[in-house]
């Protein structure tokens, strides 16, 4: 398949759209199940996210009278669309190469911010005071986790650039092919801090405890999504699940794309397994063992520990490459 039809297929079926959604929901289900088990609960069935989604489609959608109606309606759609494009951009090692120039890490980083922005737009158009607090918190959080994220990506870019003889190469294709030759980036001890920094950013991007501050249920009653109901809420949930998949896939591609299987099915299976592993250690385990931080604490945390770790890797890499 090629051309427009190919892109369409990538967007709707694999690796974007249906595949990403299915995997994202599966991750969300597993996450809830394991989380429950960690608390000695039975927990919901793994397919619970699908049921939730179907239910939300059956619910009435209320639009607050005080809201900016257009922005309120379009925000979840925009977030979802952005996320859909993002998952299409991420290659599945051994199966899917990524689309043309779209596999650029910097581009992905940009698109990753879209759902957060959509959430902010939606929340601030809802006219609820909790939404407003949520927005300001979401903004702070985005700034906080973007810093270490950018440094990590820069580090990897420099490493990949070194192999292909340029200053920095942000193409995921080359990052995968580099690791295919030299083994996983993670096997290089200087990259371990960067990996930890990246893991720290995952709960931040996904809005999971301890970084679910913008949606803190016990403080601002789910903040930004407070006013959403029905299918609009469903879209936010969908975006969240896609994000879960996207972030974990990104971690997999960046840090351990290899080994992948000889058959495409095996490759996909391994890929999902690695992604799941990423989610389990960075989201499930963390949210089961930590209390929510305060926004100022989270901000400080991100600017200290992950940023520090990422910088350490960056310095070591530059040192390694240029000296």
């Amino acid at each position, binding site marked *: 398949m090629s051309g427009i039809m190919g892109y369409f297929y990538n967007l709707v079926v694999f690796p974007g759209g249906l595949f990403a959604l299915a995997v994202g929901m599966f991750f969300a289900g597993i996450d809830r199940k394991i989380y429950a088990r960690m608390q000695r609960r039975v927990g919901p069935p793994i397919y619970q996210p699908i049921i939730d989604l179907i239910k939300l489609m059956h619910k009435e959608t209320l639009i607050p009278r005080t809201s900016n109606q257009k922005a309120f309606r379009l925000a979840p759609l925009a977030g979802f669309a952005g996320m859909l494009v993002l998952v299409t951009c991420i290659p599945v090692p051994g199966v899917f190469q990524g689309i043309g120039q779209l596999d650029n890490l910097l581009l992905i980083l940009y698109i990753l911010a879209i759902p957060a922005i959509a959430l902010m737009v939606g929340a601030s158009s809802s006219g609820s005071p909790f939404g407003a607090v949520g927005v300001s918190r979401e903004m702070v959080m985005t700034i906080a986790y973007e810093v270490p994220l950018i440094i990590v990506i820069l580090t990897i870019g420099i490493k990949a650039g070194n192999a292909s003889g340029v200053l920095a190469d942000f193409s995921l294709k080359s990052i995968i092919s580099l690791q295919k030759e030299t083994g996983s980036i993670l096997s290089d001890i200087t990259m371990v801090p960067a990996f930890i920094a990246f893991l720290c950013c995952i709960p931040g991007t996904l809005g999971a405890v301890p970084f679910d501050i913008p949606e803190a249920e*016990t403080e601002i009653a789910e903040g930004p999504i407070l006013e959403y109901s029905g299918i609009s809420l469903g879209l936010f949930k969908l975006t969240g699940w896609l994000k879960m998949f996207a972030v974990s896939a990104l971690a997999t591609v960046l840090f351990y794309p290899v080994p992948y299987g000889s058959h495409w099915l095996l490759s996909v299976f391994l890929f999902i397994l690695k992604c799941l592993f990423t989610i389990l250690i960075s989201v499930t385990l963390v949210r089961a063992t930590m209390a929510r931080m305060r926004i100022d604490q989270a901000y400080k945390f991100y600017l200290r520990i992950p940023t520090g770790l990422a910088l350490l890797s960056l310095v070591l890499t530059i040192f390694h490459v240029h000296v």
Partner: protein
Amino acid sequence: MSSYKIPIGPIHVVLEEPIYFQLEMEGETVRGVDIRSGHVHRGIEFLAMQKNIYQNITLVERVCSLCSNNHPFTYCMAMERIGRIKIPERAEFLRVIADEIKRIASHLFNTAILAHIIGFDSLFMLVMELREKIQDVKESTYGNRMNIAANCIGGVRYDISSEQAGFILNSLQAMKKPLEEITKIYLHNGSVRRRIEGIGVLTKDKAVEYGVVGPVARGSGIAYDVRADCPYAAYNQLSFDVITENTGDIKARAVVRIREIVESISLVEQCLKALPEGPTCLDYMPMIPGGQAIAKSEAPRGELMYYARTNGSDIPERLKWRVPTYPNWEALKIMLAGCKLADVPVIIGSIDPCVSCTER
């Protein structure tokens, strides 16, 4: 940064009960607090003057279900003082047992809720699971999980057989180890400490000025405990420590509560050991002559005081009570001043507010 207002409540997930706070915010910092209450005002004081003294035992138990035993307990004490009724000795011990079991459950609940507010659900569930043990004790001994209905004028309404005593002792024994674990978490876990240490400080001077009671006072270094200072029931025959902490922050109050649970467990054990034989209550329906009396007891949240006046009929002329949260409430303003928005629920939770008690 411009300031804006945030309403918390009256119907809000974090607040167990409806109460309305209007926070004047500047960014994430609280600049002013306006508390509006009255949502749980059910006119119980008025109702108490309509119902007879027996119905009032049940009625005052429903003032609040978390300290539900202390209300009828203190009410019965006040009535017994008016009637100069001496209750059987076994009943005195049984009253202490009921009271301490309620205290354990109430303190555990607040400890759990604190974890819930700071978003630590696993810890919340850990503590709540522990609380289920004491809930089972309540349910099998008294028949209800919240309103245990242990007291009546002239004694108690239940008895503890030796099997039941064994069950209680076993359950309490099984609680000791997990309790130690939980204490350690609240004392040392970094992620918990980050949210509770040095926040919502109430200094000793301010605590005296506002006349706070209970764990809030003890967390600020005031060693006032009605059980020790004005012993009632069988407390003068039992030994226990009055737990105090000096830092006056959320952590201090939480730690006071957890340590008090340990004391309460020991109190129940002492009671079961020393439980004298005999009747558990008067064998007639007591009539109360005209008169007035004050009775006080230490509820889980602090000093509870009852004033009763009767006129010889079985409907009291006036019944008035002052619940522990009442004086503590005003001190919230000191604790909340200048804190972050995210700290507001934690601080409110840390005084273990009982809105339904306060508003009656």
